């Protein structure tokens, strides 16, 4: 099983720092251990995410901001960097992307101490001394799209490297257990796909961050404590998506996290943070989480859905026609909420969250206005495509005003405007796992063909084409059913819209008053988007604000995309990967 192989490797984090692991410390994934957090012992399991272990032990605050505010796990997938901790001498490490190792000494990040002297590598080096790997096809992202693309390209005969930032392949949809057997059919399907890819000979690089792409098709990759360049013939980008922000007062409080974050803690690590959980947002993922947590014994306070109750027979029929299995699944989630007596408030949304002595007080607005109290508030208001690398490489985009994000242009083979660079799955739009799987099969084959391998419209390709058409129709019907009653969060002027730099909506409005118009100049004036998450959340909030005020918004008007697409420690740039 691949999880065992993963546990035997030296542990590294995806930014490339190696965590010192003595043989005495080596242990099997899932074994009980103890770590220290802020000087106190915390029970944990080897291999689970540090974020899960801390949240499971009730430690919801992981860092302090420059202004002294407390933050905790928010995205749970390595994007927001609100779960930063210091581990030993390493500063600002993402708890959600770091696996527990025995004896870890962890403190909250954001302390005032200057960085410590490094223990290794402080040498000067130039690009020409950096190792270069030359696969035929380089696939970035090991979710449904990337896994199926890698498999498809490999079956066509190509040497395929598949890189992923997480500890295990699977991505957000197939996210695997940190220890033990798959918990349900969704994980099992993922495990089978991962096994097939490995058996076919796909080389999977986990804990690997692809942070830059340069002409003609050179990728900068941090892995195993160092850097290398991957120079493939063709590349397939499958970066997935991350949750859309819902910037209401209180959305930065510890205990407020995305639906995906709570789901990862549960699905991968069998951890539930807190006891009373409120789940709010738009779309079927929220009901799925509710049903999973109910089964796990958590008290789900309510599900707050911004779409009205499903009514359209036509859309339901269209969904059932194109993906009957998914419809049945959805009805099951709903039934489990009913059985557990968990109310589902339709046409309603989270208007405000406040910390009180009894927990997080949530003001629900809309059709079912009320006030609720919970320990954990999950926000799942849709997704944004992770297309930063593509945009930073210069792939041509258009702007989807309704969705509020740039969309990468592709031809019928999923190739972008950059020759040899393909893009598939949720990073190109948000069509879910079935579309991602089908696009992967098609694009993987095309990428192998462009890399010089002869392919001949195989059976799987024809099947994928049909599946793609069917599931695109399903998605269209699904999102007609889930059409939200409110599209933008009720943001007040003092609501923080840039989580990293703690910039309020009011500060942005002041900059607009002063005459700043372009996203770039507003960024310079207010520091909006200059923090760790690199504008992933506030960028879309700013675009919506500018559009609302009648300013021209297009694919060029957001923040200019910059490398590295995720922060990288300088020390890794001087070293080769440790393997």
């Amino acid at each position, binding site marked *: 099983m691949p999880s065992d192989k993963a546990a035997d490797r030296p542990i590294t984090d995806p*930014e490339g720092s190696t965590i010192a692991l003595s043989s005495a410390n080596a242990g099997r994934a899932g074994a009980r251990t103890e770590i220290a957090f802020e000087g106190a012992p915390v029970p944990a399991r080897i291999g689970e995410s540090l974020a899960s272990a801390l949240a499971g032990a009730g430690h919801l605050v992981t860092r302090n901001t*420059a202004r002294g505010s407390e933050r905790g796990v928010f995205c749970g997938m390595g994007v927001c960097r609100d779960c930063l901790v210091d581990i030993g*001498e*390493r*500063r*600002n490490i993402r708890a959600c992307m770091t696996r527990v190792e025995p004896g870890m000494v962890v403190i909250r990040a954001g*302390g*005032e*101490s*200057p*960085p*410590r*002297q*490094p223990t290794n*590598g*402080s*040498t*000067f*080096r*130039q*690009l020409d001394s*950096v190792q270069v790997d030359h696969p035929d096809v380089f696939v970035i992202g090991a979710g449904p799209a990337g896994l199926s693309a890698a498999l498809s390209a490999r079956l066509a005969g190509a040497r395929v490297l598949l890189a992923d930032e997480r500890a295990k392949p699977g991505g957000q949809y197939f996210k695997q257990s940190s220890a033990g057997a798959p918990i349900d059919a969704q994980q099992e399907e993922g495990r089978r796909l991962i096994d097939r890819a490995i058996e076919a000979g796909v080389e999977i690089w986990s804990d690997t961050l692809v942070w*830059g792409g*340069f002409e003609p098709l*050179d990728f*900068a990759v941090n892995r195993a404590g160092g*850097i290398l*360049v991957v120079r493939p013939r063709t590349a397939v980008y499958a970066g997935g998506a991350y949750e859309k922000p819902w910037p209401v007062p209180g959305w930065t409080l510890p205990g407020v996290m995305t639906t995906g974050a709570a789901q990862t803690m549960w699905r991968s690590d069998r951890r539930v943070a807190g006891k009373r959980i409120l789940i709010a947002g738009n779309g079927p993922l929220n009901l799925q989480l509710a049903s999973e947590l109910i089964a796990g014994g958590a008290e789900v306070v309510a599900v707050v859905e911004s779409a009205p109750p499903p009514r359209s027979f036509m859309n339901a029929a269209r969904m059932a026609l194109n993906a009957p299995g998914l419809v049945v699944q959805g009805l099951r989630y709903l039934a489990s909420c009913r059985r557990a007596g968990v109310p589902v408030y339709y046409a309603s949304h989270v208007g405000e969250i406040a910390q009180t002595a009894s927990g997080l007080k949530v003001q629900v607005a809309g059709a079912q206005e009320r006030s609720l109290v919970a320990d954990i508030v999950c926000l799942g208001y849709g997704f944004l495509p992770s297309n930063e690398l593509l945009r930073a490489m*210069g792939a041509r985009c258009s702007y989807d005003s309704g969705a509020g994000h740039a969309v990468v242009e592709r031809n019928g083979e999923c190739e972008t405007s950059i020759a040899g660079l393909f893009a598939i799955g949720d990073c190109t739009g948000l069509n879910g796992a079935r579309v991602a799987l089908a696009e992967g099969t098609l694009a993987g084959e095309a990428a192998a063909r462009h890399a010089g391998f002869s392919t001949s419209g195989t059976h799987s390709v024809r099947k994928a084409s049909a599946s793609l058409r069917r599931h695109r129709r399903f998605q269209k019907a699904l999102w007609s059913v889930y059409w939200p009653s409110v599209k933008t969060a009720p943001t007040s002027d003092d609501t923080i819209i840039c989580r990293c730099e703690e910039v309020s909506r009011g500060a942005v409005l002041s900059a607009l008053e*002063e*005459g*700043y*118009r*372009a996203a*770039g*100049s507003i960024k*310079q*004036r207010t*520091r909006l988007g*200059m*923090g*760790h998450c*690199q504008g992933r959340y506030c960028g879309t909030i700013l675009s919506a604000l500018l559009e609302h005020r009648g300013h021209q918004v297009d694919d*060029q008007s957001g923040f*200019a995309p*910059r*490398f*590295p697409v995720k*922060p*990288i*420690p*300088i*020390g890794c*740039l*001087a070293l080769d990967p440790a393997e």
Partner: protein
Amino acid sequence: MAKHLPRKAEVVVVGGGVVGLSIAGFLAEGGREVVLLDAGGPAGSTANAGSLHVQMQSRFLRMYPEQVPALESGLHLYPKAVDFWHDLERKLNADFGMKMTGGLMVAETEDQLDFLRRKAARERALGLDSEILERSDLDRVAPYIGPAVIGAELCANEGKLNPLQANAAIRGWAQSCGVAIHDGVHVAALSPQGSGFIVETGGGKVHADQVVIAAAYGSRTLLEPFGYELAIEAEPLHVNITERAAPFIGHLVQHAERPITLKQFASGHVVIGGGWPANLGSERGFPTVELASIIGNATLAQHIVPTVSNLHIIRTWAGVNTPTDGKGILGPVEGVPGLFAAIPGDAGYTLGPLCASLVAECVLGKKPAEDIGPYSPARFRTPAAARPKADAHLSAL
């Protein structure tokens, strides 16, 4: 920001960087009605790393040894320019995030240290406060400097500021003085008309009595029709920004032989740049970076200051420098009454406000506080070119 482009203005300033904004402010204070036009997008001042350079940069000495006499002839302006920044911060009652902690240029070999000894001696003769530090001095003054460094030149006149804070404050001041700022207006051409000029822009024509060109590398094409060939070129340069850290790097740090500037802002971010190449990226609308520069520049930084290896780079970008023939291009454009140039040259951000005030004094008909004769644009006048006929030029557009 002013909404509609006016058809007439007493003075049009082309370029809204630190130079253009300062000139516009000084002219408005002097009673002129000023319209400032800026093409927008990333440019010199809006993509600047905030070094206040005074000592001669080893990068320029190496790259353009023939320009050393010109560089030395203007060196006395640099400490004055830093003082001018201080005065401006006080005058505007603003916070530029200035720190005058001095600048270190480090040496790894005896050869490099000898070079610094000679350089420091010349700079002292020209009025700079430069001295040589041995390793033992460094351990005391700058313990964060790594073991590879055997000594350094310390120039006490140097420092740093936060250009984001400074630019915003200067812009706000210029606006409060009455300058009408128009962003996103690209000036395509200038042509003489009567005793003034027609400024051709993407948004229409503006008639101006006087025009100040403060458009850095963009100034070259604007001055060509008047018979000037400025020896300036856009030089896109790489910058890395790290996450915040508690203060640990005091000085502006450079190297005797390798291109680097390294400093920590008051905000805690470490800014690493200093001459690694980037691309103009004109087809993208903003300059783009190169992998070789990210790796080379950042690892050179940790070679000099090992503790930065524990910091994450959160962003890279490229700024565009405008090197000249070694000194500024300042003052009236000879043969074209009413036209002025304001291009401070190397370390243009440091020299910006001072040079702006000198040019503003010319525009207002006053005697500048410094003799700017040596910086006259006249040295770039082509002998053959004559002043273009207004009609001929306009019909060509």
